[in-house]
């Protein structure tokens, strides 16, 4: 049974799609660390907020899933820019602790604001692809999981093009390398900071949109995501967005095989085991810290 090739392929398909979801959920954290050198402790709450905004747009405004997702990404970008402006910009020249505490506070406020607005009872958001599945050679592919993969591809190729070719993207890569040199050549580091926050929040919210229909919505839902995101970012190399993509897939596959072939109980421990091993053996991560395109 364990060596049945169809079963192994199914585990690979599951792991791959879950892993791309991890990468999508983590890339915003990697961006903020790589470009601004700051750790965003409200990252999980951005994911949660994206999911709840989607729920609100569909239930209260009656919008279809696709349009609600676009509206949500725009709202999240605005919120990310505001978060960067209020919490990160005033602390750019201080130690990282200021931003850690500031974002932690924002995360707690967001959790409780959502609990106040939507209650603590788990909610469900419906996606048209949720009940879809198709089969290739005995391997089942689920519609929503495929949407996660497609969103990953679209988001990462869009991010690549943005960082590579847009004026603000070039400034972001420059800031990842040397902030003092940015000031020297007249790059507005506050503006780049706000853009980075907007991009990171939009991507994290997008992850919430495509992944949350697979699970329940509740105010603390970001906690699990943030733990996996930190694992992915540490394994891939702090701030390295391509490293985060590869580490996300690797973690997804490892969890899938551990759950399928070994013991389901150790599956959730894998992220921690690999993260701790990585911090001991290679603290810079697989690919080191750079946003290089």
């Amino acid at each position, binding site marked *: 049974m364990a060596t049945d090739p169809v079963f192994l392929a199914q585990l690979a398909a599951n792991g791959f799609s879950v892993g791309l979801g991890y990468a999508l959920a983590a890339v915003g954290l990697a961006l903020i660390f790589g470009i601004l050198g700051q750790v965003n402790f409200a990252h999980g709450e951005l994911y949660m907020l994206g999911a709840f905004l989607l729920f609100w747009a569909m239930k209260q405004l009656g919008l279809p899933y696709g349009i609600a997702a676009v509206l949500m990404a725009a709202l999240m970008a605005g919120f990310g820019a505001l978060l960067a402006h209020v919490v990160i910009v005033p602390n750019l020249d201080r130690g990282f602790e200021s931003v850690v505490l500031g974002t932690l506070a924002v995360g707690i406020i967001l959790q409780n604001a959502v609990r106040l607005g939507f209650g603590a009872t788990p909610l469900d958001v419906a996606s048209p692809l949720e009940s879809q599945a198709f089969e290739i050679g005995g391997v089942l592919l689920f519609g929503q999981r495929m949407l996660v993969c497609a969103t990953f591809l679209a988001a990462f190729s869009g991010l690549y093009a943005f960082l590579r070719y847009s004026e603000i993207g*070039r*400034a972001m*890569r*420059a800031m990842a*390398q*040397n902030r*003092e*040199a940015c*000031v*020297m*050549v*007249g*790059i*507005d580091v506050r503006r780049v900071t706000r853009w980075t926050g907007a991009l990171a929040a939009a991507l994290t919210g997008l992850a919430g949109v495509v992944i949350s229909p697979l699970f329940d919505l509740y105010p603390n839902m970001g906690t699990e995501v943030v733990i996996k995101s930190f694992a992915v970012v540490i394994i891939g190399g702090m701030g390295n967005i391509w490293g985060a993509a590869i580490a996300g897939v690797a973690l997804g596959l490892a969890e899938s095989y551990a759950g399928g072939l070994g013991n389901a109980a150790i599956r959730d421990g894998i992220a921690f085991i690999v993260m701790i091993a990585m911090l001991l053996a290679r603290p810079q991560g697989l690919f080191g810290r*750079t946003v*290089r395109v």
Partner: protein
Amino acid sequence: MAEQFVLEIRGTTGGYADNTVLHGVDLAIPAGSWTTIIGANGAGKSTLLKLIAGIIACRSGRVIFQGTEVTRLSALERLRAGIGLVPQGRCNFPLLSVAENLLLGGYSRRLRRADLARESAAVVARFPQLRERWSVDAGNLSGGEQQMLEMAMVLMARPQLLLLDEPSLGLAPGPMQAVFETVRALTAQGITVVMVEQNARQALERCDIGVVLELGRVSLVEPANRVLEHPDIRRSFLGL
């Protein structure tokens, strides 16, 4: 009268947090001149350059550039107005090529890419050794080449006043000569240069004006050759 001086500083104070470094600096820099600021460690030389460039705030007093008060302008606004600073130590984008670094040097001017490329070719004509290293990552250049690159990057912003903080720091005598020769060529084209320099004698032998900064105040402003002959200066700063 004010037009003769490209930069006037009147009674400026400034520093970091609760540490005031500059206690009322008065200085006037003639257009097209090369000024070297010397002084002991902690005298406030780098702080003065940062204050002129708008990196740190001016707590009191005024900074006047080309007859216009710039005291309240940000670093970016002052760069657009024509004040460029090359900070101390390495200050470039190490993982980008020389060509890409130069393009970023013109970032503040919002030019089209084709215009930027044309300008970077014109700027690099002053730096022959950079042209040979066009596609090399800045981090792989020698110290002297990186210093040249940083000067070229700031020149892409078209400054009228170029501030250089220890441009010869860590350079061998050869590259140091090259940096000084480049500075002389820039002033010949009408750019005013103010530099802070540890190699005081080499700089004073070439520049126009020497300024001595002591404990956050200007204690001497003289033509450079007079500063070189000053007995106290020879003893304190030149080791002669």
